[in-house]
Each structure stands twice: as C-alpha cells, then as structure tokens.
C-alpha cells in the first residue's frame, strides 16, 4: 500500500518537472487587447473580451468571427493577462479549459509561443485578436480593451 504514493510520484515526475516559466522579461506596463485593424472593431467591454478568450461567444457586433490566440502556458505574460482580466490564477484558467475540453464542449484556443508570434497571428488573421504590451501597438492593430497593471 505504501507503494502507491511513491511510484505514482515517480510516474508523474516528467509532468511535475515540466519547464518552468521562461526567463523572459514580463510586461511591467499596460497590456492591451488588440484586434486586426482591418476587422473594423474599435472597442469591447470586459465581458466581451472574457466571452472571446473563454470560448463562450466569439462573434463581434459586426457579425464577424473573432479569431483569438492564447500564449503558451509557460509564458509569464499569459498569467498577467488572465490575472488582470478576471483575477484568476493560471491553474484556475487551466482547470476551466480542462472542463471544456474533456466534456467535449470546445477545443482549447490556438496557442503561440511568444508575443512576436502573437502579433503575427493577429496580422495574419482578418479578425485576429490577442493581447500585447501596450507600448508595442502600431497602426496594424486596434486597441479594443486596456488592462492596466
């Protein structure tokens, strides 16, 4: 009987020892939710942003479909984003998605590895939506929601 906890932990070692947060500088300034400027969306409410990033509803008011991207788990900006958006820890976000995925309601959002890939995603999709450091926003994007530090 004593064997269970020990061998179970050994079996799980690869999971527990998964790479921790990459040594990347995190955004100290504001984060912004941005949409590809060609999509024609100028502003969203916090609820609308939550609906899109939690997979609840993904149509903009103009009838076009939002194409959100999320960051890989290990990126520190991901936890900043969800903490500022809904005050939730990454583990709670992952618990939410495990319920959605394993009850077959929906798939996880497509994930990108870096903020650079995030901006590429938004530019490459006509209604791409994602979160970036506010200081790095240019004319290709519309800031639709701001998340103060």
């Amino acid at each position: 009987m004593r064997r269970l906890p020990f061998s179970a932990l050994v079996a799980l070692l690869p999971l527990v020892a998964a790479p921790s947060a990459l040594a990347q500088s995190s955004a100290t300034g504001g984060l912004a939710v941005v949409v590809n400027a060609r999509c024609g969306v100028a502003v969203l409410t916090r609820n609308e942003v939550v609906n899109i990033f939690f997979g609840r509803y993904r149509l903009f008011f103009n009838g076009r479909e939002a194409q959100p991207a999320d960051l890989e788990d290990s990126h520190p900006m991901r936890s900043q984003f969800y903490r500022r958006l809904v005050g939730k820890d990454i583990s709670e976000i992952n618990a939410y998605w495990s319920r959605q995925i394993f009850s077959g309601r929906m798939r996880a959002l497509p994930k990108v590895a870096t903020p650079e890939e995030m901006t590429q995603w938004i530019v490459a999709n006509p209604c791409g939506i994602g979160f970036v450091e506010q200081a790095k926003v240019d004319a290709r994007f519309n800031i639709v929601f701001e998340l103060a530090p």
Partner: protein
Amino acid sequence: MAYLSFPRFSAYLHRLVVRLGLVLAVAGAALSLPARGEPGDFTIGGFGTVGMARTNTNDVEFVRDLSQPRGARKRWTGNVDSILGLQANWRINSEFAAVVQGVSRYRYDRSYTPEIAWAYLKVDPSPTLSMRFGRLGTEFFMLADSRLVGYSYLPVRPPGDYFWSLPFSSINGADAALTVPLADNTLRGKIYYGIADGKIPLEDEQWNIGGSPMMGAYLEYQAGPWLLRGSYANIRFNSNLPILQNFYSLVPHYLTADQARTSLDYLRVDGTRSHYYSLGLVYDNGPWQFQLMLNSIDQGSRAFADSYAGYALAGYRIGSVTPYLGYSWVRSRNYSPSSLPGVTQVQADSFSRQGTTIVGARWDVARNVALKAQWDAIRGDSASIFPFRRERPGWDGRVDVFSLTMDFVF
C-alpha cells in the same frame, strides 16, 4: 462476504500504478510532438486522479457513485477516486471535429476495464450553433458531464448527496447547443436525446439500464462572473430491477407465486419515466468560487422514492492553495407505501436522509497538477442507506470520509 482481501487490494493498486505509469510515458512522448490548432490537426490529451480514501467505520462502504460495487471502509483504498482518461481529438476542418475519450476506473464488475466514455462527431455550422452525434456524456445536472475530471473542479469529488442518484453517464444520441448574446452577456440553450448505456451494480447482480431513452434540455445565462442554469431531463426505463432472485429471501414468510408477482408488479420499473429538475448558480471571480445547486427528482416507479438534494460550496484562493467549505444534503420524499409483501424492504434500499459537511483544500502544486485533501462528515438517519454498499444492521447513519488525491491533466 467476499470483500477485497489485502493482497488483492494491493494488486489492484499496483496494476493501477503500472498502467498510469505506462500511459503517462506514452502521453509524455506524444506531448513532445508538435500540436497546434491548425485545421486538419490531431491532438491527444488526458486527465487522471490518483486517489486514496478511507472512512472511520466498517459498518458501511462509501462509494463515489452508483457505478461502484464496493467502497471505502477503515482501510485506505484507491478504488473510489482513481481514474485515467485519454482523449483523442481530430479537427477535420473548421466545421467538423471527431473526439474519442477512453476512461479506466473502478467499475460495476470490480475491474478497471477501459470504457469508451465519449465518441462523437461535432459539427459547428456557425459560431453560435454546435451539434454532436455519437456517444455523449450527459448533463443531467450542471457539471455532471465533467464529474470524472478531478483537475477541473475544487473538491476531491462532486458532492455525493447531489450526484449519487445519477447513474447515467453516457448516451448514444445527439445534442445541439445554441448561444445567443444579450448585451455583453450570453444565453445558451442545449437539448439532447439518446439511448442510455450503462450498468448499475446491485447487491449480487447488475441492473442494465442500456436501451432506456432519455432526453433533456437546459438554459444557461452567463453574466460576467455569474452563471445561472435551469435544467430538465427524463429517462424512460426499459427494464426492471433484477430483484426476482432475491425477492423470496426478502420476505420471511411463505409467498405464493401470485403474491410475489403482485408485489413485483407494484415495484415495476420497466416502462416508467423519471423526471430530473435542477437549478444551479455559480459565482467565479478573482480568488472566490461559489456554487449553489438544487435538484428535485420525481421517480416514475414505486420502487424508488422521490428526492430533493442540494449543495453549497465556497472556496477562496490564497496563493496556490484554495481552502474550501461546503454542505450537501439529500432527502427522500413521497413514498408509495404498501402492505404488499416485500415492497417496504425494496423501497428501503433507495432511502436517503442525510447531510454532509465538506472541508478541504486544493493545492496547485505544479503546472496541471493539483493535490487535494478532504474530510466529509456524513450525518444521516440510520435508515439512510442509499447509496452506501453493504451496510450492517445497527449502523448509526454517521460516517467520516478522508480523501487524498492528486489530479492532473496533460
């Protein structure tokens, strides 16, 4: 009394651990393959729980749900909560997807034989409409379709008082869900229909509820951190309880075949329809999580009592630890008393009148891994024997359950 001897119990655990280890190794290898959300992609994921549970009495056995023929007593057992699930998703294009989920857990025949829990084709003709065809989990009550995914919720297991009377986990059928925006909130409705699939272990036999048609619907309103859901479902049973063999032993005095037939007819389940109503309210904001669920079950058969059940659960996250506190209860009501021989004895098997205080903590110890410890203090009527297993006469209706689990997803 052929309960699990220690060597056999130990063998169960060992086999479970070996299986978990093997599957995790395979999954680990699969994880290192690139998996991105591009059309035409194929992904594999999974979830699991390594759990240990014990109680403070040998007078009854505590089970997680009706599918478990044996439960926990004073000795630690891994059977109550341990589970492994693997899911393969194939995204065919932006409209079509196929999903298969296999689950291995302690089940009605006392084995860990893997079962296909889900196998369906999903069609999303528009971003607001989603339809699924095939083998589906049922959402008789809120969160009922993710009962096995321990990582997805706060406590060790969904409160038993609320979910025990729900033996159905899969249907072969179809469902459709539609989401409508109301300002920046959402209203979501879902309907489903299918044929039940599953077996419920009774004292010595299994009751096969396969082939019973069930249908249901719910409406759900999400406003920021608030989620409110009302739901209705029903099932029309197409088989009787397999109690014919045992029936004569229930009744001490001589019984003619005619009398037995009259009693069994009174307790008929075949052809009866049971109705399930529920209301759920969830608040999930910042460090707070709160759930309130209520249900009412109207049984068609006189063999079962109608019931009310509910639970309230609150948790507050401090760093990576979330302590939680809850209370659940269940009350049988509306018996159909009869002086026919044997009827009272059969009805007594589905009687419950008890409340459970739940105290525990979840610790998110690493990415996608959570450790939980929980104490359930069940306080009930001594006649409240549903759904415990093998209760001994003289049991006082009280049992404390201690649980430790490690939940993970990958």
